[in-house]
């Protein structure tokens, strides 16, 4: 995963990168393992009769889990700049950032579409209520609304990036909507997901939260230093 492991002769630096690779590996592995621990054999959805829309719901859940991990990677990478790429072992290129962004938005939209679709099939009518935020009602609709608003921010962030040549100066601020979007997604996922508060998942959520907060502080500090010069 990390090319730096092979590009250095120093054993301490090598171990540092191996530890970072292990952290990343764990962050990608644990959600999958937790998901399959609770969901089990996916072929049962095809071998047996299940409730309408159940398989769509399960796929939606899986995509949602990984969409968050990839978004975390992208946000951290963007906030930490070159240091982030070294830490994450990712390419420092616009193409990579754009491809990853495209992948993330596809995952999020698939997650949302499949969930609305699953509920619509179960209800026998289009679940239009899921497309309207509800914060004054009960717990579940409020938490779902966080995800809904996050998806709007993410779409806006993507639009601003696509229009960067037409909106010089402004687009960067619009593109930064991905940061609040990350926090909304994190809270939506943590407070509504069946697996997200299971055992090993909890430290991963805390880790993602802490690293992005650290990255924001780092970015602000860097900006202040730059302004002082």
């Amino acid at each position: 995963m990390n090319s730096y492991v092979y590009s250095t002769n120093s054993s301490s630096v090598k171990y540092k990168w191996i530890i970072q690779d292990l952290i990343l590996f764990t962050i990608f592995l644990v959600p999958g393992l937790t998901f399959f621990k609770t969901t089990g054999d996916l072929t049962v959805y095809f071998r047996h009769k299940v409730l309408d829309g159940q398989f769509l719901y399960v796929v939606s859940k899986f995509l949602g889990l990984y969409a968050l991990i990839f978004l975390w990677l992208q946000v951290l990478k963007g906030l930490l700049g070159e240091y982030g790429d070294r830490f994450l072992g990712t390419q420092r290129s616009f193409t990579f950032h754009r491809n990853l962004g495209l992948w993330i938005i596809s995952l999020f939209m698939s997650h949302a579409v499949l969930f609305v679709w699953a509920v619509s099939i179960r209800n026998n009518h289009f679940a239009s209520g899921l497309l309207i935020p509800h914060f004054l009602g009960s717990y579940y609709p409020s938490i779902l609304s966080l995800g809904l608003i996050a998806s709007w921010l993410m779409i806006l962030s993507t639009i601003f990036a696509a229009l960067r040549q037409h909106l010089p100066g402004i687009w960067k601020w619009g593109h930064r909507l991905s940061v609040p979007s990350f926090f909304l997604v994190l809270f939506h996922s943590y407070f509504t997901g069946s697996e997200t508060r299971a055992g090993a998942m909890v430290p991963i959520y805390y880790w993602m939260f802490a690293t992005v907060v650290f990255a924001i502080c780092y970015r602000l500090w860097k900006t202040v230093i730059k302004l002082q010069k």
Partner: protein
Amino acid sequence: MIRIGSLVACSLFLVHLLLILNSHMENTIGEKDSGKELLIPKISIPELLTEIKAGKKVLFIDTREEKEFQEEHIPGAQNLTLRDVNAEAVKRFAAVDFVIPYCIKDFRGFELGKLLKRLGLENVYVLQKPGINYWKSQGLPVAGERCLSDDEALRRMQNNLNFSYEEGRSL
């Protein structure tokens, strides 16, 4: 870049197509003609109430988050989320005649029921018309912060439906 983007978009489009096909088949074939066995048997509310009247032990498991459970739940239900299922719970539930996991629309309820079955529990059922929303739509009482106390909800069940729901609550 365009090639990778197209590849991602095409693969996701294909996944969606497969899922459309799957859900279309689910809807058109229907339960009776599909030839597939129900993974978790369904039971209607009237059937369930008859069983309770007959003295069978019924346990409702609310599979939602604790906050949702506190807001409202089927009277006498126990709160257990998917992540908290363990062998001990299965052992406890084995003594009941009907274990009914539920949530809002039974997405989570079904997953928990499936997990319980995987862990060896045979007495798991889902409601014919899924979820607490349907339960409420039938005018059946719910307990919680936003509505009645557990005791009051159980009392109304007993009074209105003329059966001893308490028996079913014996766990």
